[in-house]
């Protein structure tokens, strides 16, 4: 692969670009379509690992504790992520329940777990044979994890319900906010290029 070493193809427009081999820490964009060719490398993904581990710790309380409570004429209702999925399942809305489960529980959890595993492999210099699948799965899960959209939906529901009932945020809300921050940080500071570089340096 000597020819391709300094060459790079733009992922969006397939333009062949010669990247300067020196100054690897620079941020390079495609001259034709402005896509990111190689993001500035910020060293080992320590922040991603820290965020992923913190997120995993926060995960159980964030999804099981109630986010919101409503009191209406002495009747109480509460919502947590898990109970939301459970209620949709009870209402026979299986496809919607599965979609909510995937986007707000399964994908964020797996994203954090896979990010942590990948970072640990890089830090420890491990090259397990399943490493490529791990990096690919991390990327896929990032795509399906939609906690930030969920948070916006929760905000909309909260304001929508302020009028008819006495609605209040519950203990799960700060946990979910923390989890959301961890998921965003883990996504932003995880560089798959670094992971692939680590994989290509494995002893053959």
């Amino acid at each position, binding site marked *: 692969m000597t020819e*391709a070493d300094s060459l790079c*193809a733009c992922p969006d427009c397939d333009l*062949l670009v010669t990247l300067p081999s020196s100054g690897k820490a620079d941020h390079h964009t495609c001259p034709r379509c402005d896509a990111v060719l190689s993001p500035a490398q910020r060293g080992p993904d320590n922040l991603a690992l820290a965020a992923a581990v913190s997120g995993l710790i926060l995960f159980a309380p964030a999804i099981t504790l109630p986010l919101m409570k409503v009191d*209406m004429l002495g009747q109480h209702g509460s919502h947590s992520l898990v109970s*939301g999925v459970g209620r949709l399942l009870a209402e026979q809305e299986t496809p919607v329940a599965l*979609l909510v489960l995937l986007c707000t529980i399964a994908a964020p959890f797996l994203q954090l777990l896979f990010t942590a595993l990948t970072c640990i492999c890089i830090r420890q210099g491990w090259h397990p044979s399943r490493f490529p699948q791990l990096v690919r799965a991390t990327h896929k899960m990032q795509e399906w994890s939609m906690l930030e959209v969920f948070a916006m*939906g929760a905000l909309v*529901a909260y304001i929508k319900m302020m009028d008819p*009932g006495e609605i209040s945020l519950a203990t799960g809300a700060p946990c979910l906010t923390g989890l959301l921050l961890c998921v965003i940080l883990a996504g932003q500071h995880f560089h798959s290029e670094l992971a692939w570089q680590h994989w290509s340096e494995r002893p053959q």
Partner: protein
Amino acid sequence: MTSAMRRGLARCMQCGLLSKMPSLGKKEIAHCPRCDSELYLRRPRSVQTTWAHVIAASLLLLPANLLPILTVIHFGKGEPDTIMSGIVDLWNTGLWAIAAIVFIASIVVPIIKLMAIITLLLVVQWRLPLSRTQCIALYRFVHFIGRWSMLDLFMISILVTLVHLGNIANVESGPGATAFGAVVVLTIFAANSFDPRLIWDLENE
């Protein structure tokens, strides 16, 4: 300016490694030397797959908007809400900002997304005279905005659980929610199956 394809080089869609595309027999598939994913010069059958997803999503847009997605029962009485009537209700109660957010996320975004993908497909198939930079901006917009249409579904999941107060008030989800979820997922698939490099290939011909 040459594309990598002209030089017989393929970029791995998973790990980004550039490698020489081997000459293949009819049913052979090349694999990336680094991560072992399948290696293509262009995503196979990208246009057809994208069309299939777009058409399915457009058809499902009808039940998604016409069928009720939510029924709010207050003291035993309640009307099923479609997406639009829910927005109108919010607007009438004076919650304009929320009405606008829900309107944008659940009606404007899915429609604009589908139209944007159809435009991109037409540019590739019929060579509509659109500038390449506009097309790529459209492509990136579609990718960026896609997930936000999920907002309504999450809101439904919150409301049905929260407002489950026996006879006083109750919220139930409706069949429109399933159709709407399918629209969102299909548009995400459509955006993912479109290969943006096809737009730039036209320039090189």
